[in-house]
């Protein structure tokens, strides 16, 4: 079930209403049943009789069930063996980590791995035909795998295991976060299932506002930018410079608004019932460096990688080369986690390289900034750093979105092409020539839109981007959430802002039920 679908807006009120009507001791059953329904509905809505084999779904159900059961038992065994002073705890830990990882590998990476081996074999003139598994990748597999691993490791590190199978299952399957996070730690979420939540008007409306803001980012910005980005990236060889650049920027806004929009809806949905999920984004496009950006982007994934990979590898408390190696490992794991495709690995490597490059050149850049006087104009300097960080991230993002590595390389090598006399035409403000220059011959659409709709859609995108960016800047400067800032205003200003938000959603939203990008991870 998609958060931006009518189905969800029927499902959610029913779940929330029944949740508050039930006595506390029965609520977990309701939430678990609702979560199973929510998860199963994805497959029900995509099932095509005669085309999709039903046993695929049985395999998916069994795989997630097995992850829950195995991790549940393993965690108890780890705790038991630790309390008994047995050395088996390490073995259990290994099983608990490997089991979901093996499933993840089979479902998500086996075909990629097999094809890569086959390509290498063919390069070496060896005969190894790629074995392809015809299976459906379970929705949210990367997320629930990370949930289960963190749980096992936390228990190994001393956290008490959950003996209530229902609550543990709910921890893995909780519907607001099952598909695309946030990646919650068991120590934070499971205790919340035990707490009794009463209906709190303030908390409830706050959750609704957060959901509305998430929907705005998804439906008004991301889904509109997606039309351009999809057109350009899916037909990249048909486009040159200016279109490729527009496509890249549209994608970079799409990916953020899509994912942070999803996260806001997830956090808001949980908040309606009294649960507090972790914020996944903290205005990353206002970051002043790549390392700053990665502290603000997909926070729960990055903190997971930090706690369960980076720190066990030694983190920063090792030799300088080893620290840099650890950084690169983190980025590579992040790339592989995103998808079984070389494009993600290149994307992650580029981000890792940016990070290392900034470490190597830190002193040099400081000296250069002082030399040209940038340090004397801190505001301008900060704006410049934000711009450069954003552009670097946008450039790496080309590989995140490109369908293949060759598409990605085509795009980066053609960003500068096809400009011709464009700058002269713009300088001369020759609108007719500009129109002719921008029109793509023999196409009834323009960058994914019907030609007459292109300008109104772009004006809508530009205006809503300005609105969203202004909100980000206000929040960044005030260090307060927009909802808090609004709540401090008189009622008429509050309602005017609510009206603008609703108006944008209803009259400017794209109602095409587009899937969230991170659902495929």
């Amino acid at each position, binding site marked *: 079930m998609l958060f931006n679908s009518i189905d969800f807006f029927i499902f959610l009120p029913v779940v929330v209403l029944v949740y508050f009507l039930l006595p506390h001791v029965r609520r977990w059953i309701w939430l678990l049943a609702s979560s199973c329904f929510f998860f199963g509905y994805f497959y029900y809505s995509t099932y095509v009789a005669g085309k999709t084999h039903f046993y695929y779904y049985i395999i998916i159900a069994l795989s997630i069930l097995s992850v829950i059961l195995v991790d549940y038992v393993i965690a108890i065994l780890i705790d038991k063996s630790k309390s008994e002073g047995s050395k088996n705890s390490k073995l259990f830990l290994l099983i608990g980590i490997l089991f979901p990882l093996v499933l993840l590998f089979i479902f998500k990476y086996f075909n990629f791995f097999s094809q890569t081996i086959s390509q290498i074999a063919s390069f070496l003139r060896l005969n190894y035909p790629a074995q392809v598994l015809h299976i459906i990748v379970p929705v949210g597999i990367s997320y629930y795998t990370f949930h289960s691993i963190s749980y096992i490791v936390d228990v190994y590190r001393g956290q008490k295991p959950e003996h209530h199978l229902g609550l543990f299952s709910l921890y893995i399957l909780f519907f607001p976060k099952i598909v695309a996070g946030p990646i919650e730690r068991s120590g934070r979420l499971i205790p919340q299932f035990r707490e009794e939540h009463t209906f709190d*008007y303030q908390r409830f409306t706050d959750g609704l506002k957060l959901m509305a803001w998430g929907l705005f980012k998804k439906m008004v910005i991301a889904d509109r930018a997606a039309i351009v980005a999809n057109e350009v990236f899916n037909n990249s060889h048909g486009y040159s410079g200016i279109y490729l650049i527009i496509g890249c920027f549209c994608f970079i806004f799409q990916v953020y608004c899509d994912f942070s929009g999803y996260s806001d809806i997830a956090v808001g949905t949980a908040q309606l019932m009294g649960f507090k999920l972790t914020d996944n984004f903290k205005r990353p496009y206002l970051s002043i460096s790549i390392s700053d950006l990665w502290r603000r982007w997909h926070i729960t994934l990055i903190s997971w990688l930090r706690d369960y990979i980076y720190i066990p590898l030694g983190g920063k408390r090792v030799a300088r080369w080893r620290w840099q190696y650890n950084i690169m490992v983190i980025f590579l794991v992040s790339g592989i986690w995103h998808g079984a495709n070389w494009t993600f690995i290149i994307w992650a490597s580029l981000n890792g390289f940016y990070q290392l490059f900034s470490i190597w050149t830190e002193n040099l850049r400081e000296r250069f900034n002082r030399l040209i006087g940038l340090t004397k104009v801190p505001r301008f300097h900060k704006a410049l750093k934000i711009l450069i960080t954003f552009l670097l991230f946008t450039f790496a993002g080309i590989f995140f979105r490109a369908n293949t590595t060759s598409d990605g390389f085509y795009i980066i090598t053609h960003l500068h092409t096809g400009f011709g006399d464009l700058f002269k035409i713009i300088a001369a403000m020759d609108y007719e020539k500009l129109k002719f220059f921008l029109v793509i011959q023999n196409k009834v659409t323009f960058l994914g839109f019907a030609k007459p*709709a292109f*300008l109104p859609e772009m*004006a809508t995108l530009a205006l809503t981007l300005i609105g969203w960016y202004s909100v980000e800047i206000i929040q960044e400067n005030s260090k307060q959430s927009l909802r808090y800032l609004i709540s401090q205003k008189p009622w008429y200003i509050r309602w005017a802002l609510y009206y603008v938000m609703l108006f944008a959603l209803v009259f*400017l939203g794209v109602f095409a039920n587009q899937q969230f990008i991170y659902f495929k991870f």
Partner: protein
Amino acid sequence: MIKLVIKIIICFILMAATMALIWVIPGSHPHDLAALLNKKEMLITKPSPRMILVGGSSVLSIKSELIAKELQYNIIDMSSWGGMGTMEMLEEIRPYIKPTDLVVITMEYGTILDKNFYTYIHTNEEAKKFLFLMSPGRHILESVKKREFFSLVKLMHELAQMKTKSFLLKVSTFNYSHLFDIGFPGFKDEFNANGDRNRPYMIFRPLGDSKTNYSYPEWEKLAFLNDFNDFATKHQARVLFYFSHFPENKYKENINYIEAYYQLMKKNFKGTIINKPSDFLYPEEYFADTIYHLNDKGESIRTPEMIKMLKKAL
């Protein structure tokens, strides 16, 4: 909880009121088919004697000024896209038919000889939206009678969205003088005073072809032409029908189906048929981008031929 429910109801009322407001305020819809609204204005305002051209986009590749000059008629070219449906379009123009009006109809071969396209025409949502704009009151009543409330709200919402985005563009580009223009925003640029295209279609090769699967026609699908003819006769108007231009090679490939169509029309149609399908056959060089659109050269040849046939029929 009650406070929350009240606030949610207020939000619903606010949005419903806003939607009503957007519908009431004049504004344009950034879509080619919204040109129908501008053409409807012509139907309302143009004086007699009038020649109303109805058909798909093939009708737009004609030099209407020449016809107007030669035959001394005020031309109203109501054509836009074959996918709109001739039957639906004739329904829309009925209220505006005046005595002495001459309604000249054509139907591209694909619209009647391809069963899939025929089904598509009468079910496609895009056409429905703009036919709705032609006479919203009638369509609302029809939807209410059929209890199609959800699709009605969806359609009205989509049209309101289009209008909103158009307003937004005009406001953001300070184009206040055209804020309340109706119909297609580029109408004056792309269409002339007769509702015909200002510029001929551009030439592209290979010629676009909607991959028509030809089949033999059935009269039930054409019977509406006689209904309209009866209506027009009752209102002292006349209906003429002609077979559209077509590339020679395509005609030869599908001659059996096209001839069957001709015979069916000759046998059953109560109005006047002014040509045979073979009259408007041209080599590919006279076509612009698709097998339906003539280029400038094609228009220059076809228009005088059309005038000759119309003169004969009048």
